């Protein structure tokens, strides 16, 4: 199946000497929820601007729905809903008027405005001026504008900025249901892994303009177990260390605790079995896995 977004060897710099995006390749298939992660200033927003044709790449190419992204190909954007950085809202206008501007330009039926307001739970605030909105309400209205055309591809740059935990959960559930019910392909950027961890099917982690990880969410979760450590307490830690050192990397033996590196759940069970078979009493076995946030931080070297 051909990808919805494909970018190859994409490079861009605001100045010739300083590349912000360094030859990245990206492919997002239909129905995927792609979590685009990276710390602030990693090049996420610039990449999104390149994908949407707001910037022209110095090198490489971008194709969306199999067509080269270009302002000359404006009809392509009828299939895309986007929110880039902060929502673009006219604060002197009401929520309905902000949506009406977009509806007119996109030539959509009038009913679509009320419908998206209900979707983002702002139906009661339709006639309120945006300047009276809280940060979270503005974010939701920005999301409503992106959802207005019923897009096949939704590109959201840090959509949960300014939302409270309830708002974050609501947004996640909304995106999940759009993906599940309508098959909407979603690219969602964030600098917080935990935000996209529960949502994304695929993840790309960018740092200093280059990908440090790209793959499925499962592949990223598998990394959790790599380099993880099990803490053991037995009736004879010295013997246990000797027994295990032939098969596993024993890190330290201190304060009555033995620390052994393992890379899969099965290995953890094997360690326990090996000790018990040798007649050792295992008082405590604490299998700690690397948490995703740590992996993310290690990847982006922060």
């Amino acid at each position, binding site marked *: 199946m051909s990808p919805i977004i494909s970018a190859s060897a994409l490079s861009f710099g605001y100045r010739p000497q300083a590349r912000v995006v360094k030859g990245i390749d990206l492919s997002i298939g239909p129905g995927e929820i792609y979590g685009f992660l990276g710390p602030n200033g990693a090049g996420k927003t610039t990449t999104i601007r390149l994908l*949407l044709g*707001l910037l022209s790449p110095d090198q490489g190419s971008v194709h969306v729905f199999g067509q080269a992204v270009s*302002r000359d190909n404006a009809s392509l*954007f009828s299939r*895309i809903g986007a929110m880039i950085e902060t929502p*673009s809202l*006219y604060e002197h206008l009401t929520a309905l008027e902000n949506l009406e*501007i977009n509806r*007119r330009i996109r*030539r959509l039926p009038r009913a679509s405005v009320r419908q998206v307001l209900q979707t983002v739970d702002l139906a009661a605030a339709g006639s309120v001026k945006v300047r009276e909105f809280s940060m979270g309400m503005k974010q939701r209205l920005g999301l409503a504008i992106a959802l207005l055309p019923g897009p096949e591809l939704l590109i959201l740059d840090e959509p949960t900025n300014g939302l409270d935990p309830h708002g974050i959960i609501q947004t996640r559930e909304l995106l999940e249901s759009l993906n599940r019910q309508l098959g909407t392909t979603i690219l969602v950027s964030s600098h917080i892994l935990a935000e996209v961890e529960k949502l994304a099917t695929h993840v790309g982690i960018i740092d200093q303009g280059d990908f440090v990880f790209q793959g499925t969410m499962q592949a990223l979760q598998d990394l959790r177990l790599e380099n993880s450590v099990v803490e053991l307490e037995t009736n004879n830690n010295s013997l246990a260390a000797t027994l295990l050192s032939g098969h596993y990397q024993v890190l330290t033996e201190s304060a009555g605790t033995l620390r052994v590196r393992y890379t899969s759940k099965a290995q953890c069970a094997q360690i326990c079995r090996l000790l018990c078979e040798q007649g050792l009493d295992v008082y405590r076995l604490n299998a700690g896995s690397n948490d995703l946030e740590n992996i993310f931080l290690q990847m982006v070297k922060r």
Partner: protein
Amino acid sequence: MKDVINVYLSELIKLRRTFAFWLTVLGAAIIPLTMLITYVYNWHMFIPASGANPWAEMYARAFNGIILFMPLYIILLIGLTYHLEYKANAWKHLFVLPVSKRALFLGKYLIVLTMVFSFMTLFLLFTWIAGGLVGFYKAELGFRRHNPDVFTVLDFSIKVLIAVLAIISIHFWLGLKIRNLVSVLGIGLAGMALAILMNGRGGYADFFPYAYPIMLMNYVPSSPDAYLERFHWVSLTYFALFSLLALSKFVKSFRG
């Protein structure tokens, strides 16, 4: 074409409750209101000679006021029109809508031209209302016995609109290059100050856009065989040139 109309209609929505909208309505009323107050308080100074049309003097005075005020209005209007988009961080969003950049440009440009045209129309209407009210207040001023000279009013309107086209196009182009509203206003005000110093038609002033409205000071209808003066033609040339420059900048390199 349909895209341009839709963008134009969406631009109309954006104008609701804006300072630019109220500037157009209230700005057009300032000169007529001043005329009304002047005529009411000093009515004995304006009693016309026997058989003379009092509307001619009222409109002549109003015309002299509007040619000084109109460039200021235009500079502020265009600055505010751009400021609206910058303040809302809206350019990036507009550029991912399924319409061409050309349609976005034309929709916005047409709105500015519409506002300037509306400003002029409202000014003429408010002046006519002011004359009517003065006529009711003091019958001896003769406003109710005469009618305004439609030809003169139309002739002046066309001339002043042609004269300001250069300023409109230059400031529309400047708005794409300079994001700061105050800087653009500063350039406009400096241009107007220089124009006042240039003192009238002919010579270099014919090539200085901010001077064109002032050249219509103490306006007298021109003869039909030389309808437009040189500065009018230069203004039209500037308008064509800067409109194309602005379109080219907007379509090719403007990121907002």
